[in-house]
């Protein structure tokens, strides 16, 4: 469901900075359904990639074969990202807070971390330069604290947070994430239970449509038959 909702967020012809895992599935699903002209850019330098297999890493050789362009990483960050050419960026993180700020650096204090996470990678600059940020993350109070332990990527361009139970949006007036949509059969209280602050709701909640048989077929039989990323 998360991959399907993320895919539906992408418009045909958009330029998307793709991360590994569910975002990659979502982008390739969108390309095979409603957005055949989606341009996938990977931070590794593949532009207009059409991967023939699901890449385990963001630097998979299948991203190169048949792509439109391969450039160095200085070009990716300067000529594409900082230049403002990226419309949508996907991010995830160990923690997402009420303002949509993301932590992928440490749990606990920086100098004496309880858990050392991988760090920013390209996430800090993607959050700053992509026009619209989509976060994909499963709900839990630990993953959605009121404040992140470390602010790796600022939340001001976060448009939506796609969770396993519903969709949060950033409310322009308050700057807070609010509940905007629910998946079939999910109650708003279930979403609130997975968030570490008092989650407000939009006046009217969207009831999101379940995956279509085409979407399910593509995800399960074509894009991720080995269930690398489709766990549920």
């Amino acid at each position, binding site marked *: 469901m998360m991959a399907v909702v993320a895919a539906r967020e992408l418009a045909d012809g958009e330029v998307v900075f793709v991360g590994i895992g569910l975002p990659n599935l979502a982008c390739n699903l969108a390309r095979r359904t409603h957005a055949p002209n989606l341009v996938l850019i990977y931070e590794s330098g593949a532009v207009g990639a059409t991967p023939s297999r699901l890449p385990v*890493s963001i630097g998979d050789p299948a991203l190169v074969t048949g792509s439109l362009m391969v450039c160095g*990483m200085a070009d990716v*960050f300067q000529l594409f990202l*900082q230049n403002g050419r990226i419309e949508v960026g996907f991010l995830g993180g160990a923690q997402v807070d009420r303002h949509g700020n993301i932590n992928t650096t440490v749990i606990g204090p920086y100098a004496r*971390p309880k858990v050392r996470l991988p760090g920013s990678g390209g996430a800090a*600059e993607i959050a700053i330069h992509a026009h619209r940020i989509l976060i994909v993350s499963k709900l839990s109070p630990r993953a959605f604290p009121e404040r992140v332990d470390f602010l*790796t990527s600022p939340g*001001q361009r976060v448009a939506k947070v796609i969770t396993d139970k519903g969709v949060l949006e950033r409310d322009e007036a308050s700057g807070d994430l609010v509940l905007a949509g629910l998946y079939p059969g999910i109650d708003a209280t279930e979403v609130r239970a997975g968030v570490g602050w008092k989650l407000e709701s939009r006046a009217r909640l969207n009831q999101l449509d379940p995956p279509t048989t085409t979407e399910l077929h593509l995800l399960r039989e074509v894009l991720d038959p080995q269930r690398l990323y489709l766990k549920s």
Partner: protein
Amino acid sequence: MQDAVARYVRDGDVVVIEGFTHLISFAAGHEIIRQHRRDLTLCRLTPDLIYDQMIAAGCAKKLVFSWAGNPGVGSLHAFRRAVEGQTLEIEEYSHFGMVARFSAGAARLPFWTLRDYAGTDLPRANPRIKSVTCPYTGEELATVPALNPDVTIVHAQRADAQGNTQIWGLLGVQKEAAFASQRVIVVVEELVDERVVRSDPNRTLIPATIVSAVVVEPWGAHPSYAQGYYDRDNEFYIGWDTISRESAVLSDYLDEFVYGVRDRAEYMQKQPRLAERLKAGEQRCAGVNYGF
């Protein structure tokens, strides 16, 4: 490889083995471990398994990086143990920050400017991330210092004997890292005649003028990959999670596959089915006309 590492990699050096997923010289990393280099400052965007192994082997004093994970798998456990146990110094940037550091180093400028880090905690974690006011617009821009390694090691598909080096597929920051470095070791899948290089000069990323040594080491990037030669060994990357989780198991791995072999050829002989499993298929490009 033995000679190149013995001659160009010294204790205490700032060492870069670059390659973004693609073309990571594991062969060089293993030789540095075998030669017991110590107190190295290891720099890379993504430390990857190779620096995890070098950290575990005790080569590293400090790590300079921007994303320290096992791509698509999870943690680098030796790195995590060292940081959580505070036995490894770290200096942390984002990818753009590291790219910018290499760009400044390659251009022999003292720093590079970028529009980044506003609103993040990264400058607080790393005081070397600073800012400057643009003299033309008044805008506040982030700055990162130049990175000029003592030695950069680059894996590539092919080079001629002088070191004119051709790379295709993902380019990472190989060019910037090489130009930024005092010494450059190029490790290649194939040594080719200078005529091959001259037939396709646009594919040359690193010119012989900046290269200190050329090492021919087929399969030298495994478990990373070389486009057109062999695939990434994703099974190994996934398996590393189990190997590296316990330092005793990791130590056994190093004993068998690093200390237990003399060179890359022996490493490959130990794993006779590897080549068959990972050998690349054919996907030739159309070719271009360089005539005039």
